[in-house]
């Protein structure tokens, strides 16, 4: 029975992924000078029939510091707000990691979906907000940086690549020059 269930899930999975809209918006940071609130991170995007606006308070959350996501979704054609439920999950934004943890399921409150969060460690995370409207699944992903994670990855890759290029060329050239010297010496002996 369990096997049949897994097969059905796997068979349905591509259909689900195909229908889902995958979103990764561009963050912008803004300061509201009319109030004393800290700066916020804001991303606007559109997905299917909806215009999405999500804001993160504060813009630069630190570990063990409470933060909040406000998500607004309204129809592109008539601005009608989405009134269903939105599920928020989170995953570590490291390569090949797909393990998601639930953050919460939020009902609409004054046209806004509010999701609180507290992270224990520095890192780059991806928040996923998902909802269903008119029978179609909507998935929105956006990055969230907590604290100051060390960006060793790109530096390591760049240094690694440069070192690999330099060492490879150097080794091959040394071998080539060595062979040339031997050949030259042999020719000199023969002469």
């Amino acid at each position, binding site marked *: 029975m369990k096997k049949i269930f897994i097969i059905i899930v796997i068979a349905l999975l591509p259909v689900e992924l195909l229908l889902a809209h*995958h979103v990764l918006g*561009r963050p912008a940071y803004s*300061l509201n*000078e009319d109030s004393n609130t800290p700066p916020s991170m804001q991303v606007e995007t559109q*997905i299917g029939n909806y215009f999405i606006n999500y804001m993160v308070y504060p813009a630069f959350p630190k570990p063990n510091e409470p933060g909040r996501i406000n998500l607004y979704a309204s129809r*592109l054609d008539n601005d009608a707000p989405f009134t269903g439920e939105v599920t928020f999950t989170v995953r570590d934004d490291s390569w090949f990691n797909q393990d998601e943890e639930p953050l919460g399921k939020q009902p609409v409150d004054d046209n806004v979906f509010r999701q609180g969060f507290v992270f224990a460690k520095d890192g780059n995370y991806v928040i996923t907000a998902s909802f269903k409207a008119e029978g179609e699944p909507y998935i929105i992903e956006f990055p969230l940086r907590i604290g*100051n994670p060390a960006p060793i990855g790109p530096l390591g890759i760049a240094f690694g690549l*440069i070192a690999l290029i*330099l060492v490879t060329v150097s080794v091959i*050239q040394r071998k080539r020059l060595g062979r040339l010297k031997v050949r030259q010496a042999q020719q000199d002996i023969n002469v």
Partner: protein
Amino acid sequence: MTDDELFALVNDGSICIINGERTMVHPGLPYVWGGVVGFVMLLASLWMLRTSVKNSKNSPRFNLISLPVLGNLIRYITTRAWVLTSIKSISVILFLMVIVAGLFGTPIAERNLATMLTWNVWWAGLILAVFFLGTTWCSICPWDAIATWLVRRRLWLRAEPNNSFNLRVPKQLRTIWPALLLFTGLTWLELGAGVTTNPYATALLALIMVVLATLSLSLFERKAFCQYFCPIGRTVGFYAQLAPVELRPIDNDVCLNCTSLECFHGTDLIEPCPTHLVMGTLKQSTYCTSCGNCSQSCPEQNVAWRLRSPSTEAIQESRPHWDEAWFMLGLMALTLFHGVTMMPFWSSWISNFGQIINDSGQMLWTFSIGLIISLLMPIFLYAMMVWLTKYLTRTTLSFRRVFTQMAFVAIPLAFAYHLAHNLNHLLRESIGTWAVLQNPLGNNMLPLSLSEQYFRHMQLQPHQDILFAVQAGLMVFGFIIAIKVIHARGQYLFNSSVKFSAWKLMPVLLFAVGMTSLHLFLLMQPMTMRM
């Protein structure tokens, strides 16, 4: 900022509402300037149609080294390798600071050195630098300097050749198609993926440039990356055809009698020309990287910087090639595209088109389709006009020959608009760079408030009216050179085969008028600011 102040700014045109959000915009060129440019365009077009061109083989030049005091200084600077290396070192230090700030600094673009220095100062100012100094940027290019120091393992003077494979670039790659592809990719990253507002991505791009330059230098002889692949180098190179300076022989007879060709081969101490140029036959600055190897290696000290008319090279001296023609037209199309994406109507276009093709998120598919259409449309239009010109002149020359020869018209059109557009960016968006240099990582900095943005972008020096006058002047400059290019190259192409009449060049002239009008229209619109 109070509601009244905000309302005043909306009325003033400094703020507009895009997708329900308040967005700062730079005011466009006033209509009166648009009218002046239009009138000059009309006069210039009539002049072209009614006069014949006198091809002057030797347009006047002035050797800068003949200047008192300054001439000696220029000679000293261009013949001492350590001087250039010192300037290069400063450029490398700034470049490394960009990488560090991008990776470790604040993600707020306007507070981070990576984005401020790269996009608001360097990228905007680079085109302006070409206008005055030609290809001199290439001589202090930091990614090439780092790659050269790593591979050649010498700060200056000739290095051991065995640190590289020194392969010849495969024949298929000995074109600038790779540079056009990379330039299109760079535009996609800049405007589509939003690298300009992302310090982290800016740092990654800088690292990629270093890796690519190192790889190319390790594999290929001389500077293949600069010659064939670098999108920045090729852009600078083509625009440098319109620069008022050039590096050339002082006395052509000295070069004619030279058999050792130190400028090409180098000497025991000085590297050879990185792009395989021979000074005695040099007519086109496109591939010169201003590295100074020729002026340092010439035993006769026969190489020097000269002043010249900015139109000389594009009008008659540059020799056209098929790939170069495509690069020039691509450059013009992508420059236009840059302008279009900064118009307030762009985001609603993208949104509407995105809905039609069911795109979402960053709208990268929508953007990519828009980019491809924008790249191909002007080239297609140009091809149509070339075909029409061919039909009118009843020439037996091939379409390819006419297409290639007349493509030089794209350079002044693109350069003038690029300069006018970038001048706006540079004067308005580079304000605040000094503060960012004092805190390059932007530690503990907050995003700019709307009032800070307003004062940063609208209180520019010199006065805004001067900026408008210069922008209008640049459009006139570009159009007049474009007309001279059409006239001179048209006469060169068709004069011998048919009874030449400038009216038969009307299609290409219409193309130049159309492109300039489009550029002018874009300049007259309010422009959304980058950060």
